[in-house]
């Protein structure tokens, strides 16, 4: 079991935006919604690997920048009728500091 890693402050991530954490196992996208919830997904679209961090965030969803698949931030599931799932990582925010469990 890996532990939570501090990745930055909440305000480092723009609202309705995303930042990338680069890891040996590939990039992880950290998203912030308009009401300051934070989610982390593998930065690779289940469709053709598009970088989800570059998409448009709306509600608790992100639209992939390459071909507009829509992915749920809470569980990485792709919205039907498209199918697939992006790996998700647990996140917690304490005192404005964002931690991700990688």
């Amino acid at each position: 079991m890996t532990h939570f890693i501090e990745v930055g402050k909440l305000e480092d991530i723009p609202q309705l935006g995303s930042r990338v954490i680069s890891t040996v196992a590939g990039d992880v996208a950290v998203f912030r919604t308009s009401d300051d919830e934070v989610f982390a997904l593998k930065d690779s679209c289940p469709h053709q690997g598009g970088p989800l961090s570059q998409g448009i965030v709306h509600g608790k969803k992100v639209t992939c920048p390459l071909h507009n698949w829509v992915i749920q931030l809470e569980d990485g599931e792709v919205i039907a009728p498209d199918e697939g799932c992006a790996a998700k990582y647990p996140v917690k925010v304490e005192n404005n500091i964002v931690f991700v469990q990688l």
Partner: protein
Amino acid sequence: MKEKLVLVGNGMAGVRTLEELLKIAPEKYDITVFGAEPYGNYNRILLSPVLAGEKSLDEIMLNDEQWYKDNDIALIKGKKVVGIDRKKKTVTSEDGTTSSYDRLLLSTGSNPFMIPIPGIDTPGVISFRDVYDVDQMLDASKKHKHAVVIGGGLLGLEAANGLMLQGMHVTVVHLSDTLMDRQMDSVSGNMLKTSLEQRGLQFLMEHSTEAIIGDDRVTAVRFKNGVEIAADIVVMAVGIQPNIALAESAGIYSERGIVVDDTMQTYDPTIYAVGECVQHRGSTYGLVAPLFEQAKVCANHLAEYGIGRYQGSVTSTKLKVTGIDLFSAGDFNGDEHSEELVMKDVSRGIYKKIVIKDNKISGAVMYGDTVDGAWYFQLLRDETDISDIRDNLLFGQAHLGDSGHGGHNLASQMSDATEVCGCNGVCKGEITKAITTKGLFTLDDVRAHTKASASCGSCTGLVEQIIASTLGGDYSAASNVKSICKCTEHTHEEIQTAVKAHKLTSYRAVIKHMDWNTPDGCHACRPALNYYALAAWPAEAVDDPQSRYINERVHANIQKDGTYSVVPRIWGGVTNPKELRAIADVADKYKVPTVKITGGQRIDLLGVKKQDLPLMWKDLNDSGMVSGHAYGKSLRTVKTCVGKEHCRFGTQYSMALGIKIEQLTWGSWMPHKYKIAVSGCPRNCAEATIKDFGVVAVDSGYELHVGGNGGIKVRATDLLCKVTSEEEVIEYCNAFTQMYREQAHYLERTAPWIERVGLSYVKAHVVEDQANRKKLSQRFIESQSYVQKDPWAERTTGDFQKHQFVTLKEVS
């Protein structure tokens, strides 16, 4: 406690209303459904293919019983409701089952009309309405030979075709001399008759039925002229009558149908009605597309959203007989005030008639080649002034200057294996299969499930035609006022007007003011709202980077592998050794894998890592170069030819003029990409006649062309006007550009915009109205004063938007 909603009539309109309701207010009601038929909800439209043996009942189920369970809906099937007690608010079925309601929804459909003639009750006389009828017909076809179908309308012909395919000898009897006379004029009706005869159907036209003959079972049909023909079954398909018996018995005001207002409410405010049983503004409907519009509005009011009104529908029809393409819409017979455009090519089996009134399409009938049906229908409902395209109207949308897709336009003649969508490799068979097995109705559904027409869109007409011939109606364009996306009911126009009128300067302001039903909009509406605010309020609006597509957010084009490309602006396509050296140096320094000359007269550095972008931009800025906006819904390139500067044929200085225009227009945000070109003589080497704004120099001045593009659907420009000086070129260019910026829908290029509003309209505002032209031009100049900042330079100095280019954290 949840409120109780009871639905009477488990058919297409009623259940669609529930589906819409569950989407927006899933928790609001405890729902009970009464259905007289012993099934879940099936696609009644597809009973014809079931009869023809092309599909099974399972294949046409829209909502099986599991669906009702999954959504906690109590389905009481096989029970007909016979009474409504409006005081106690209960409904009761034949066997005494009673349910109470807070709101009641009636969707009882219609009853087939049975002509009151002697013998009509004889066994073997059936209608064509539900699964029971189809079972009876299939059963009869196994035991008997002769079928007579009374009624040569849509239903009658589909029944006849099905029975014939089941091996029966079928005669269709029709009262008038034209088949489908409610949908067809006499020419197309006759073409249809000929091709059905070739398939083996018999017709008795202008025959009026007098009596059905037979004791235990029908044996013959007799006509008023004395003729008698043998019949083992008789299918009555002469029309339908809204089923209002239940409503009337409860004293709910009904005329031909149950009368409802624009919110689908009956005279009893707790009771709503949708579908074929209703009468709205004096009309009743017998096709699914309008019923689905009603369902949407009704669901909205049941959810107490209070938005959305049903305003009636114009319908279009197709006949679902495999191999026959036929389309009709609106008033296709015309009257003394209308004109007709007709094309008739009997040996190719093609007939098209467009009825025009006051320069607008009021109706259309097509037989054989129906690929443009959806387009005519769109023009009809948009009430587009067609005077500018009248010359080519009959030949179809493709002839508005398109060289487009590979020549397939007869959907019925395409094999299942023919590729329809070239972008996503989708074949016809996949589309028809998805429509029937997944219960799809609209273009959007088909796009979502198959990806056909979801990318470049050039196959949209074909896909619409396939939907229409599979489902028998035009669903793709069900609503004539299209909302911008699923987050709202509002149209582009309504939003643009509100942005101006209420000074909405950000997407947030729009969402709030116009009551969006999602918290932050979506990837489709947010970029549009951001643009509308910027276009209307150039000084005040706050640009929101998170509401822009990635390309515009980081000022570079994203590539398939997540790298980016860099295209510096090369003014008018004219460069010099210093710029070229700087580009070469940058390419070396950042190990750019590919350097390419673009189709827009400049140089593309492809495969750049995101974090290198600001560094490269800095180097390019230092050599005097700025962003080329190759990524934006913005001014792209101004292409020029050599011109009078060097060319022996040049009549004006096209390079210098092109550079001047680019310097005035660069940086501006647009509804879509915007390209300009300037050619030095009519040889037009800069291809100005396929640009959004094109200038072709002639000896006496400059021809100004608008609304062209290469790309998916090549469209040559329309001539806007001719001017004599460079100053005028610039004023017209500014004015045209600004009018497009202010009025087009987001993601609508100049070509479709002009086709929608008409060239005359554009000319009236830009050419004929001098004062308006000057105002437009002035507004463009003002708006430019806020945006002509190089976005690259902004990002290479200081921390502006720096988070876009650096990772949050490296974890090893």
